[in-house]
Structure formats: C-alpha cells, structure tokens
C-alpha cells in the first residue's frame, strides 16, 4: 500500500487540533475546527505556473487551477486555511507520524 500524504494542524503552543489526509479528505481532531477546515476544502484553488513558447523562447506566467484531489491541491488549500485560522501546518514524514 502506498504512503499517504498526511498533514497536522497545530494551534499555538503546539497542541494538535486536526490531521488531514487523502481524498476525499479525511479529518480528525477537534470537531468545530474540523468543520471550519472542511469548509475551506470544497473548491478549486488558483496558482501561478509557467508558459513557454517553444518557438520563440518567450517565457510567461499563466494561471493554473488545481481541482479538488489534484496533486498539490490539499497542501495548497491547507496552507491557506492554516494561515486564515492562525494554525501551524506541518506535513508528516513518509515513514508515518
């Protein structure tokens, strides 16, 4: 079985308030915070990425939309959620946590 990407959200003082992993996202922890975090995990997110014209070599900045479940979507959503809720986000190691 593959190793899941798991995140831990900490309140000030290092208290664990929630853990999130997989898709659909599974959340465990304080129910009220889990509900608020889940509210942020419903929609796609916009990030910036590169465009490159192979003929002219012109580099550009383009928009990328990460749909729920896409690679990087959970980390991006959680990073923004943690910022908004004043939580500290850590990603747990490959070997568990």
């Amino acid at each position: 079985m593959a190793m899941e990407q798991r995140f831990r959200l900490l309140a000030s003082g290092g208290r664990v308030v929630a853990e999130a992993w997989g898709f659909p996202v599974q959340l465990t922890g304080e129910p009220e915070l889990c509900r608020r975090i889940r509210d942020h995990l419903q929609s796609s997110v916009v990030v910036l990425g590169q465009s490159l014209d192979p003929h002219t070599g012109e580099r550009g900045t383009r928009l990328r939309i990460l749909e729920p479940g896409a690679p990087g979507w959970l980390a991006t959503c959680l990073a923004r959620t943690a910022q908004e809720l004043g939580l500290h986000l850590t990603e747990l190691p490959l070997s568990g946590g």
Partner: protein
Amino acid sequence: MEELVPLSPYRSDRQYARLETYRRLGLADGTWAAEQFNLRVHVSQGGPEGAETRACQIWETVDRLPLQIKDLLRNVIDEVRLDSQESFPSDTLGSWRDGTMRINQDWSLIPALRDPGWHRDLGYDLLRATLAHETGHALVEDPRGGIRLRDAVALIAASGWLPHPLDDAVPYGPVGRQVSTLSAYYLKRLREVDSSWDGELSLGSPALPSSAQLDRDVMRDVRASTRHRTKARGSLGLQGSEQLLRRLRHADPGRLVRDLADCGLVLEDVDAALRRRRGISFYAEDAVSETPAEIFRCIHVPYTRAEHSRPALLEGERVLLEPWRTADRAIGARRPALTPERPWESLQLVRRGVGRELGR
C-alpha cells in the same frame, strides 16, 4: 576568505515620481512610464472593452512595486507591450523575452478568472506577481549582467531540487547538508554533461547554453516540445521536492525501503533530505529555470509564502538582493525623482505646490 559581493549594475541613483503626479498634470500614463522608467510602451489597437482600464491598472501596479523591481524595469526592460489575448498561449497573464515584457490586456477572457467567487483583489495580486516574476527573469538572465551560473545553481539547490535517491544517492549524504556543497556537486555534474557550463559566467551570457538547455540538462522531466537532445546528453535528473515526494509516496513502502538499503540509504534520511529544503511554489517546480525568478517574486511579492522554503529565500537574499543592496550602500542616498520633462509642466508643478513632493 569571504567573497566580495559585486555591485549590481541595475541600481538606479534616482527616486521615482508618482504616477499620480503625472495624472494630476493631465499627462498620459505612457509618458510617466517613458520618463520614469525609460520604457517604450506599445498598446495593441482594437483591444477589447475594458482594455484601457486594464492598462491603467498595470501602471498603478507598477507605481506600487518595490524599488528593486522599479530599478529593473528602468534598467533591464526596454519595452512594455499590452497585447491582445490571442497573441499568448492560453491562460497566460504576461511574459518576458529579451528586454520586452508583454502583458495580456484582457484577463476577462481567461477562463480561470471568470469565476465570480474569486476575491476581487485577485486580479491586482496576480498582476503584481506576474510583473515581479518576469522582472526576476530579466534580472537573472539579462545578457548585460544577470547572475552567475553557479549562483543560479545554488538557488536550485536551495529550493529542494533533488535526484531520485535510487538514481543518485550522493545528495542524500553529507554533500546534501549544505547548499554550498550540494550546488558545487550539481555544477560538477552539469559540467560533465556539457563542459561549456561555466559557473563563473552570467546565466544570460552568449557563451553559455540557453536556459532551455539548462532545463534539459538538469531536470528529469521536461516538456515534450523541448525534450529532444536531453537524454542523449545525459541529465542530472533533478525533480522538485513536491514531485519527488509524490513519487515516493506512490512507491510500495516495503520495496522502497529495501531498494534504498541497497544504495546505503534509509527512508528517514531520504525524508529528512527532502524536507530540509522545499520548493518555494508550484511555479518554482515547473522548471529549474523558473526557480530563480520565482524566488525573486517571493521575496518581493509573497502571494503565498511557505515557511518550509526559508533556505530558498535566504539564498535568494544573498544572490539576488545583496549586490543591489551593496550598490545601494556604495552609491548612497538617491537623488530626487525627475519631474516631467516639459518646462511648462514643470512650472505648473511648482505653482501647484507639488515641487516639494518631487524634491525640487
């Protein structure tokens, strides 16, 4: 012995007049861009409805950019073009090449921005991020200066680019603990791929292969359109830390542990190496040649800032900012901004009491 930091040739010795001053005098925004930033401005004719508003937003965004980016606009960018959507690849906000920056003048046509749920400031944030990122490219790759290849490689090493541990175990040992030793290792390997990669030359130097070739020689995955020649030359096979973690997560854990043991590695060490330095954004993991520009953007315009990418920001401060700050200290205080160049208008400035604002 500590290395002397070179002076950036791009630091201006003048302040910049505000856009508002020109507008108050009834002068066109393009006049402000030309006089303050030495920019030729081209606006495509027959633009869509709202294109004029977009142009105003662009100059208002430029007006609020940090000083270093303004200096680069003045000294590295020759022309800003506001071009139509059709002239860009899909979803492109702006681009840079050889002293010319092009901004898409109709973002309303970009499907991703049609969602009414996006925050109303997103357009401004994206414009600011685009200008900062493309200016970062100009700084890093400008043939008239730019940064040395070995400094660019240091930015790549500081941003978590690593080979798969089963392909190359060296960066997961002592070599990978310091950015300096890791980047020296990458540079040595790069020269083995192509001896013309001279670490002392500027990244934009005509004597070096192109930045597209840097992608081909360093990355494991490059776009199909630019892939030809890569593997025949060999490659360092580097991947962004997010991509590599994703690949490792999909591996069978038992088999991965056994394969790593055959290479003299343990999973915890690989994990620690991957987390020691992380990519600064998705953009920075699109290509190694995007990494320096994205670090420059993150330093000045933290659209999103990841705490785990601190080593990349520190290396960016050393490579991208310190030469400019050294010039700042060497040259001293900036002279007042140039006022509008027409004598009559300068007189009006004094009469209206804005001369003090302009340092006159």
